């Protein structure tokens, strides 16, 4: 089977179906785009996959070591442990902590020493700590943030905050990385740089990236497949070329020129 299979996923808020009957497949090493008008249900869809919301109906299944694991209703931290990581549409860094700490926190479930070792500062603790820091610096270097390791997250300019969010998500060692509007608030120049970075990490880390974005220069450039949502439903699905030509998508989302 595929890496992740979503079947007939539905989320209702009161009378409103924010996500409705969506089928979605993620394979290994892909770059997938998720687009759609405002309020189409894209963020809600991410929230369902990462455990922030519990689906009203439908299934989310992850394949791991040849087994299928049902993700419905699992706590977010468990889903992260299983290899799904994300960034947030409204940046949610640990603002009062340093860049380094932000990354170390994300590593903790994989590498951190346990409570006992930390309380009594055993050699294991020092070894684990040292390893984590080295690893974190490596990750930060990819995003050119290594020199800012001791800056408080809130003091970073906006663009760097977005990048740090990606580093932090990567630090959880995900198989699938979900990015929610990573280019929002960036100018075209910065967006272009980000585009290259996303390609690079997808290749280097051998992961799948799923991204929500309204900036078509980014989406059409990097994504291999695109899903389009409208009113919670799947409106279309295909390659960038197909989507750009799809009249329904043009009408609902892209707008004609």
């Amino acid at each position, binding site marked *: 089977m595929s890496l992740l299979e979503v079947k007939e996923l539905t989320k209702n808020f009161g009378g409103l179906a924010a996500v409705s009957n969506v089928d979605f497949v993620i394979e290994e090493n892909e770059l997938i785009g998720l687009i759609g008008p405002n309020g189409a249900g894209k963020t809600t869809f991410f929230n369902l996959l990462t455990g922030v919301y519990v689906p009203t109906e439908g299934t989310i299944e992850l394949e791991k070591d040849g087994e299928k694991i049902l993700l419905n209703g699992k706590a977010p931290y468990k889903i*992260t442990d299983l290899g799904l990581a994300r960034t947030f549409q409204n940046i949610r860094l640990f603002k009062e902590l340093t860049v380094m700490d932000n990354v170390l926190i994300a590593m903790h479930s994989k590498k951190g020493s346990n409570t006992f070792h930390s309380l009594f500062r055993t050699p294991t603790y020092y070894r684990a700590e040292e390893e984590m820091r080295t690893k974190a610096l490596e990750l930060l270097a990819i995003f050119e943030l290594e020199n800012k390791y001791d800056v408080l997250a809130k003091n970073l300019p906006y663009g760097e905050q977005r990048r740090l969010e990606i580093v932090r998500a990567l630090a959880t060692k995900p198989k699938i990385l979900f990015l929610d509007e990573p280019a929002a608030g960036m100018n075209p120049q910065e967006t272009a740089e980000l585009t290259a970075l996303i390609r690079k990490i997808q290749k280097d880390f051998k992961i799948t990236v799923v991204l929500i974005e309204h900036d078509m220069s980014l989406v059409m450039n990097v994504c291999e497949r695109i899903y389009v949502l409208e009113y919670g439903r799947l409106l279309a699905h295909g390659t960038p070329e197909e989507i750009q030509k799809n009249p329904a998508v043009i009408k609902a989302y892209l707008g004609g020129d």
Partner: protein
Amino acid sequence: MKQFNKNNLGWLILIALMAGILYMGIMTNIISPFYQITLVTILINIILAVGLNLVIGFSGQFSLGHAGFMAIGAYSGAVIGAQVEGFLGFLLGLFVGMVISVIVALVVGIPTLRLKGDYLAIATLGIAEIIRILILNMGDLTNGARGISGISFPFASNLSFIMVLFALVIITTIITVNYIKSSPGRATIAIREDEIAAESMGVNTTTYKVIAFMIGAATASIAGSLYGTYFSVINPGDFTFQKSIDVLIIVVFGGIGSVTGTVVAAVVLGILNTFLQSFGELRMIFYAVAIIAIMVFRPGGLLGTKEFTISGLLNRKAKKASAKKEVQ
């Protein structure tokens, strides 16, 4: 890594120095019996407040139930101290109190720590009150409202008690600091910063909240045992909501999230309190005005979230130089 050791060494020297000063001071009676009481109160308050700071300042969970755990420790110490002779009884009481507190913290923490902000505050306050009311109604075991007096004091002198107390202050503080500066500690701080993001980074928020709560409970219990042992009388009226507030004031005063700030605040408030003894009816008026004034002028507390560090002290010059470079 080198820096790390230098820093630790610095602290070690400072602690040894302080222990030496205390020892000599008490031996020579320069720290008179009266100042010893103030000292004991301050040291006990440090244990209480450091633990509460872990819960409130670092894990971001607003607990108003500290007095309940202190009561558990005090009563365990008193009851067991009466059964088991000597120092062993003291240790056993200390230990049993910790175990009970940790179990209570675990059992009530799991369901209630899901609550947010003021709802959690009220729930924890409720737990402390329930503990207190149970103690009040435990018949001959706790002696109800009459409390327990003549609690055993298995120390050769005040000096030896104070040295043991000092050691416990150091141990609990080091454990707390070690915890904060470790991977689980960082996970705990992440919860304070943004619970949803923390969970999405793989942090099991319930676990870490409960661990912080349990460490806080254990240290409060230790403080309670020491309190009962030293002052020899306890009754349920000593562990009301008011006591939790007193500790909270120390934490906020020092700066939420600053361990060294907590220590400084405990010392400052301890001295202020003793100083105000002679003001009779005006005492609490001055105290209240002091609280308001300090909060108005230093809303972040004495140290904010900063820590006083030895390495900071050592590096002060180096940093100044490099800061200049950056500007140019």
